[in-house]
């Protein structure tokens, strides 16, 4: 540090020398030159003081890493504590299996192909229910939204039926359909119908009438109006309905599969429960979570694409 300081002092001296050799013509110039020199001295001093032990960049990077890791700290600690208490025998496998054995079970199921069969069957049920119920909701919502007399005819009935929770129908559904596939399909379809119906109906009703009038004056046919103005105008609302429905779809599927199933994730977990395979039960629960998340990501992607014109989705 001393040596460096000396160098700086030398430099300052040289500056002074410079001033001596080339004396400034005016007072203003002199004042300017002196202030430059003073600045040089100052910045040198700062640099020299910090150069040997400059922790700032390192601390900065460490701070960023910590900030990124902080949200994961609690879940990671929990998993570690969970694993430790299982290993040390504080936690009975009957209550909760160790995280590693859950991973192991998942790996085993995936390797044997059993996992994919059940996921495929469950996802197939859910999507078929969504297609039937959601499709009906969309068509009926479009009809009642666009045709006044159909609204008068159907809407109040639909609004009344809407207040019945889908799960309350279970006893009746078992009587009607037994505990076969059709019962599950019916429950899911009923549940996803209403959010899509209501949001489609309101989406169509809320399309700016000014835009429809404009379309008419610009020579659009009825179909052209529908395709180019009414449907895109209702789209943001329809997608909100879809996201609601996707959430409901998994909940109903889980309940329906837990009651009875010959295959699917629900069957996998209920079967594992019989044999006290808690690790497989946990795999099933985590699978439902993953599928729900996947559906939500998909719906968000649709919004991002179809509503890319909307400042709120950019």
């Amino acid at each position: 540090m001393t040596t460096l300081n000396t160098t700086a002092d030398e430099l300052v001296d040289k500056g002074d020398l410079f001033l001596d050799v080339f004396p400034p013509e005016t007072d203003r110039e002199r004042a300017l030159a002196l202030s430059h020199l003073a600045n040089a001295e100052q910045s040198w001093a700062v640099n020299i003081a910090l150069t040997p032990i400059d922790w700032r960049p390192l601390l900065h990077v460490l701070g960023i890493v910590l900030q990124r890791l902080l949200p994961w700290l609690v879940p990671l600690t929990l998993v570690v504590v969970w694993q430790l208490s299982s290993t040390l025998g504080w936690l009975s496998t009957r209550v909760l299996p160790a995280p590693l054995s859950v991973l192991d079970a998942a790996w085993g199921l995936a390797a044997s192909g059993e996992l994919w069969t059940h996921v495929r069957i469950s996802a197939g049920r859910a999507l078929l229910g969504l297609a039937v119920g959601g499709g009906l909701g969309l068509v009926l919502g479009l009809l009642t939204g666009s045709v006044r007399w159909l609204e008068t005819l159907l809407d109040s009935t639909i609004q009344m039926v809407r207040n019945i929770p889908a799960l309350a129908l279970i006893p009746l559904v078992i009587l009607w359909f037994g505990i076969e596939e059709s019962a599950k399909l019916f429950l899911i379809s009923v549940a996803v119908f209403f959010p899509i119906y209501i949001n489609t109906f309101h989406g169509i009703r809320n399309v700016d009438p000014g835009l429809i009038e404009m379309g008419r004056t610009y020579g659009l046919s009825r179909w052209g109006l529908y395709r180019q103005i009414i449907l895109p105008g209702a789209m943001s609302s329809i997608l909100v309905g879809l996201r609601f429905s996707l959430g409901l779809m998994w909940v109903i599927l889980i309940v329906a599969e837990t009651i009875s199933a010959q295959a699917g994730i629900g069957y996998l977990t209920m079967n594992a429960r019989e044999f006290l395979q808690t690790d497989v039960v946990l795999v099933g629960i985590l699978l439902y979570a993953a599928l729900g998340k996947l559906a939500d990501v998909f719906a968000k992607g649709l919004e991002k694409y179809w509503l890319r014109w909307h400042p709120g989705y950019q």
Partner: protein
Amino acid sequence: MTQDNTSTGQGGVRVQARALGKSYGKRQVLQGTELLIEPGEFVAIVGRSGCGKSTLLRLVAGLEPATQGELLLDGQAVKGLNDHTRIMFQEARLLPWRRVLDNVALGLPESGKTAAAQVLEQVGLGDRQKEWPARLSGGQRQRVALARALVHKPQLLLLDEPLGALDALTRIEMHELIENLWKTHGFTALLVTHDVQEAVALADRVILIEDGAIALDERIDLARPRSRGDAHFAAIEKRILDRVLQREDPEPSVDTSWISPPAGGLRWAI
């Protein structure tokens, strides 16, 4: 005022109203309107809000049927919407989910895209074809709306206070643009406005509607392009404004020249 034959446009249509009337239930909005607009003429309708001027425009557009009298376009009675008539509304009414070029090409076959691009060029937005309407300013949106109207080569352009929501500078720019395009295309133009200065700046004739009837029909014999700083311009504007406000003896304190540019003229930045 008819257009000279050198115009490259599609020409205009003759608009004629005979004893035209419109009532909603018991409320008579428009009555006994007699009006003749020559092909290629630019007519402005002024009046206080609720006087029936927008109703007249909607009747001419065919958006609503008249309840009395008749309305003829080139001798043909108006029955509903018409392919030769286009409207510019107070709001731009662009489809927010279509890009600028697709908005202009609305109602055109796929081959209309080139024409749409050309008209966009004419309104000075040739470089914004791929933009979403939400990203445009109010003035730019109205320009897109103007392009959308003009791409259909209308013989009658109806303007329903299209510049009402724009700021003063953008309005003056839009006046010049509309006037130039009108000169080029030669369509008949019918402008509804509550801004007397706008009416005087653009129109061959200014018509005042009061309580559902035509109260004044004045020809504006100013040379184009019209300068708002001009004394003659200001005098006409003041006379019409006084008439609209129903001032019997015009007071000199009514100063409407606050917006006029200095004698040297101003250049408006786009």
